[in-house]
């Protein structure tokens, strides 16, 4: 529902999309929470000095998606919960 609504808003260019905000939903407690997100200037993809400029990191072994440690832990803005599948 949230993804569909955001999609329609973005396609129409209306409202305030969830850019820079993470919306979390806890069905048992029936609580929505919003976490502000910031861009990481050290991000290996979209940061100031990107080390990922193509998809070659995804070729090869099982750890393809893991980037080499870029010297910092999860940013302060990251929520305590880990995204799960």
């Amino acid at each position, binding site marked *: *529902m*949230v*993804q*569909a*609504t*955001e*999609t*329609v808003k*973005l*396609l*129409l*260019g*209306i*409202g305030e*999309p*969830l*850019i*820079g*905000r*993470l*919306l*979390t*939903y*806890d*069905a*048992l407690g029936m609580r929505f929470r919003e976490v502000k*997100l*910031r*861009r*990481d200037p050290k*991000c*290996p*993809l*979209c*940061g100031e000095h990107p080390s*990922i*400029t*193509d*998809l070659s*990191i*995804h*070729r090869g072994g*099982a750890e*393809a*998606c*893991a*980037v080499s440690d*870029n010297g*910092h*832990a*999860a*940013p302060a*803005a*990251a*929520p305590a*919960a*880990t*995204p*799960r*599948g």
Partner: protein
Amino acid sequence: MKTLKEMLAEARQVVPEQGPAELKKRIDAGEPLVLIDVRDPDEYRDGFIEPATNISRGFLEFRIGAAAADPTTPIVLYCQSGLRSMLASKVLKDLGYQNVTNLQGGFQKWAQSGLPVAKDRPMNAEQIQRYSRHFLLPQVGEKGQRKLLRSKVLLIGAGGLGSPTAVYLAAAGVGTIGLMDGDVVDVSNLQRQILHTTASVGRPKVDSGTETIRALNPDVNVIPLPMRIDVDNVMDIIKDYDLVVDGSDNFDTRYLVNDACYLAGKTNVHGSIFQFEGMATVLAPNQGPCYRCLYPTPPPPGLVPS
């Protein structure tokens, strides 16, 4: 008496002009400009520049207030060749609009430069009824509905997250939906994956999803993509879509979709869910963080169930 030439020369003194390439840059940068096509409705229907509103020259003074309430709003006007809109721009200047630009060479030059042209097919009676509740919403309206019908969305995953998204987008009349999933329907999927039915157990999810969507809304052109997204196909697939919805169920795919969308400049509507918890965000290249800003490294294998 003034000649046409003199009137145009006078208008050019006060109205700046911009070429198609410059206008395209401003649109792509997301500048909140109001683009107005001042040609007649039949000319507009044959092809226009997205996201223009059509206000024919004769109605401009009457309708401009609804399109741009604030006199400082950046406005760009165009017509077929750039002359009618030059005179129209002068009128807006006279009305007090401070930031009016004329598209030099008009629609003709835009199209000749190979820039994208949008085209509306008239809606049939059934579509007018089907979307009538959208027309009542001022933020959507008939213009918004046409835009949805022209839109192309790629859904990665036709499972727990992709199912409701696909159903809602199809119902809303998103014109093209790429449905990508390499799995077949299992009976254990049915308690949550509402795109599939008991009769489709054992069949590819994209086949069952395509049937559900077509039955719900025949306006939607479904493109079934019965495969997993991978490093070799991702760029070629996402290039055809306006927007990507990530409803995948594993970290490798999420990082891959994130990286590909960022590199291709596509907005990624991200979602994930586990048991009773869910989360969603929009990852828009250069407008906000990407998935790697949130989660620089994936969790070690085995720590998190997928």
